[in-house]
Each structure stands twice: as C-alpha cells, then as structure tokens.
C-alpha cells in the first residue's frame, strides 16, 4: 500500500470512528464531516491536482473507496455521487466550468447527480425532465427520484432533454423552484441522503449547461455512469471485506459445543465463501481500474463486469455474514446488518443485475470466437 493511501485511510478512520452504526439508525451523517472530507479531496480523489484535487489513479481511488465502503456504505455512496458529479464536470464541462466547479467540489461543497425519474430508469427515451432555452437563460422542469446525496448537496448535476439532444445542467439546490424531499426510511445506505427532487420553472444562466449542452443523451448517461460503476464496484469490495472481517472475528471467539465456530465445518464453508468473494471482487475491480488507468477502451465493459460481479458477491456476503453472526448481528446499525441491507441496493443502482447482464450479453455477442 502506498504511503498516501495509508494516510488517507488512517485519516478516514479517525474521522469516521465507530459512528456508522449511529448514522444508520439516525439516517443521517453530520454534514460538517462530509464537508471536511470533501475539502480534503477524498470524496472525489481522481480530480486532477490542477483543479485542487488529489489526482489519484482509479486503482488508488478504488482501494480508498473500498476502505470507506468497509466502514460505511452511506458515506461511500456520498463519495460515489461526488465523484460522479466531478467526473461529469471534468468530462463535459468547458474550461471555465471545470476550473470553477472542480475547485468547489474539492473545497467542501457537496454535489449529487440526478438521472432517475418516476417513469425512467435505464430507459432514457422515457425521460421527461426538460431544459428549455430562453435567451441567455435556461429553464428546468421535471422530477428526479432517488438522488443519492441530494439531501446534503449544494449543487445538483441534472440530466435532462434539451432541444434535439440532452444536457447536464448544474443547479444550485438553493435556486428558486428546487424542492428536495428526503426519502424516508430507505432499505439500505440509510444515511446516504437519498431524495426526490422537483424542479419547477427553475431559471438559471445558460452558463450552467455543461459544455454548452446539446450532447447525445446516451453518451452523457453512459459516461457519467461509468465512473459510478467503478465506485459502486469498489464500494462492494468494501462491504465484502467488512463481512469477512466480522464473520472471521465472530467465528474465532464464539464457541459452540466446546469449540470455536470456525471449527464447525458448515461455518467453515461460509468463511471460505467470504474469502472467495473478497478475492474475486477485488481482482475484477483491480482489472477494471487498470483498464481505466491505461485508458483502455475495455474499461467501459470492465466497469460493468466489476460492478455486476462485486454487487452479487456483496449481496451474498451480507447474507452469509448475518448467518454466521446470527443474533449477534441481527440488529440495525450492526456492520453485518448494514451490509445485508446496503448490498441489496447495490444490485439495483448504477445498472441493476439485469441491465448489467443485458450489456454483458451484448458484449459477449461481439467477441470473436478465438478471444472468448
């Protein structure tokens, strides 16, 4: 492990401490803590140093994301949102926008990115949110759902239809006409600040359109989501690691019929499964990040594969860990109880299991026989 990574992990552990259990129960992370981590640059660690970021590689940021994910998936979700918003600005923003927004996002401002709508998830053609042009202004109308981190956000990066194409619009949550409504009692990542948002005739300067707007909906969506898939995939590695740590710890100390649980063969089977899950999901994420860091075109599919594999392992690992800990882990707030609930959501967001399978199947059909 590099010195930088070790010190970032130590800093996060010090700030986070043993609070994730209480955050889960309260459904909230103190916003001051999020701003501090944002100002330290760790919420979007791949932002280049030229914009005030840490300039970390995907592999480095991935390990950092896994570490946060092993402590608290709600906090890791905030990291995913901030990172996606920053990546989207970096990719689509013009020179001035990159400078302004990326500096803000590494100085303690918080951002969320809004895609899903009441009747549009992966089906982009059903998207209704609309950006209209009116002279030097743009006007935003629509509804977005389940926007991770929106409750804490200063800025929202909103995807909407715009003319013949689509645009990302950067919307301050304080703008008139923006209504943020926190989702009550989500199944998992309970402190991640999910919210539904209504935009009612929100008028902003056209300079808030990333890169002038009017790009293709698919390309905007796929590009932004690609970062999110990396982040969720690595976050799932963290969930699996937390499950492995909790299960082995419990199996070492808890005795049944005169010997530690680990010496009971059925429990040992569970522990082996957790180790396999940790290794497999780590390797598939490392591969994806190496693709990103070497700018390989394979990174797009590698991200989908990593997300799909890791989310599946995280969901199974959460279930296994609760099984091993039994009553010791069967209470809200406990690391394995959180893993169990949080991981299930990971099979849904940033491309559900089924959407990932569709993409992977489509890819499989393009592989020449001698490469498969």
């Amino acid at each position, binding site marked *: 492990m590099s010195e930088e990574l070790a010190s970032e992990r130590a800093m996060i552990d010090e700030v986070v401490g043993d609070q994730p259990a209480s955050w889960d129960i309260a459904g909230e992370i103190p916003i001051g803590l999020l701003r501090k981590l944002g100002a330290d640059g760790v919420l979007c660690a791949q932002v280049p140093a*030229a914009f005030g970021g840490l300039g970390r590689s995907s592999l480095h940021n991935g390990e950092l994301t896994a570490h946060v994910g092993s402590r608290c998936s709600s906090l890791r979700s905030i990291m995913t949102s901030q990172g996606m918003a920053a990546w989207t600005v*970096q*990719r*689509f*923003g*013009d*020179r001035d926008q990159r400078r302004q927004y990326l500096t803000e996002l590494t100085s303690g401002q918080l951002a969320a990115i809004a895609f899903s709508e009441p009747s549009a998830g992966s089906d982009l053609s059903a998207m209704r949110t609309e950006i209209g042009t009116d002279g030097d202004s743009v006007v935003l109308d629509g509804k977005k759902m389940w926007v991770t981190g929106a409750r804490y956000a200063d800025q929202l990066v909103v995807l909407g239809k715009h003319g013949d*194409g689509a645009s990302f619009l950067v919307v301050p949550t304080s703008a008139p006409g923006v209504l943020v409504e926190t989702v009550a009692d989500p199944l998992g990542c309970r402190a991640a600040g999910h919210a539904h948002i209504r935009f009612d005739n929100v008028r902003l300067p056209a300079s808030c359109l*990333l*890169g*002038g707007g*009017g*790009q*293709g909906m*698919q*390309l*905007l*969506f*796929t*590009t932004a989501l*690609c970062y999110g898939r990396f982040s969720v995939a690595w976050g799932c590695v963290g969930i699996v690691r937390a499950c492995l740590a909790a299960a082995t710890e419990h199996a070492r100390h808890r005795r049944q019929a005169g010997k530690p649980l680990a010496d009971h063969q059925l429990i040992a089977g569970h522990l082996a499964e957790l180790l396999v899950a940790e290794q497999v999901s780590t390797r598939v994420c490392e591969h994806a990040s190496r693709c990103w860091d*070497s*700018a*390989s*075109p*394979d*990174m*797009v*599919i590698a991200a*989908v594969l990593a997300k799909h594999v890791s989310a599946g392992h995280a969901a199974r690992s959460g279930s296994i860990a609760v099984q091993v800990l039994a009553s010791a882990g069967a209470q809200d707030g406990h690391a394995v109880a959180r893993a169990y609930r949080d991981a299930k959501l990971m099979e849904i967001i940033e491309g559900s299991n089924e959407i990932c399978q569709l*993409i992977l199947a*489509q*890819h499989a059909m*393009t592989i*020449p026989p001698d490469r498969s």
Partner: protein
Amino acid sequence: MTSEQTMTAITAEAVEEALLSFLAERVKTAVEPDQDLFKSGLVSSMFAMQLVVHLEEQYDIAVIGPDLTLNNFRTVHAMTSLVLRLRNASDTAGNV
C-alpha cells in the same frame, strides 16, 4: 505505435485506415468510412465511449465538453476529422 504516431504528422488516410481496422476487429464487420455506425446498429453508446477512450489514447488528444457528441463518432469520417481538428488545436494552443 502510439508514440510513433504522436511524433510524426498524422494524415487523414492513416487515421481512417487505423479506425477501420479497429472497428473491424471490435465489431467483426467491415465498415465503410461514411457508414452511420449507430443507425446501422453496429455500435451502442457503450461502444461509443470505448471509441472516445480509444481515440484519446491513440492520438494523444482530449475529447471533452462540446466535442463529446455522438455525431462526432457517427462515422469513420467524422471521427477522422475530429482527431485531426483536436491534434491541430493542441499543436497550436496547448491542450488543457
């Protein structure tokens, strides 16, 4: 291959030829330089992003902001002129 290409001037013919062979390898079909890749169903938006990454890596360019539109990736011709334009821009203005 990349370093050689960045060292010497790049011609439209060379970019076009390299793109045609990249596409032939990836989508297993011979494509025409002016064929609409999206309309013909050969290429998805997922693959469009792979093309972005490929061109950036291969020609040492950054495709960002307003240039990230599907129209720039619709045909081999369109991608070729994008590459040449961005290469020229970075030669004269620096590339941030």
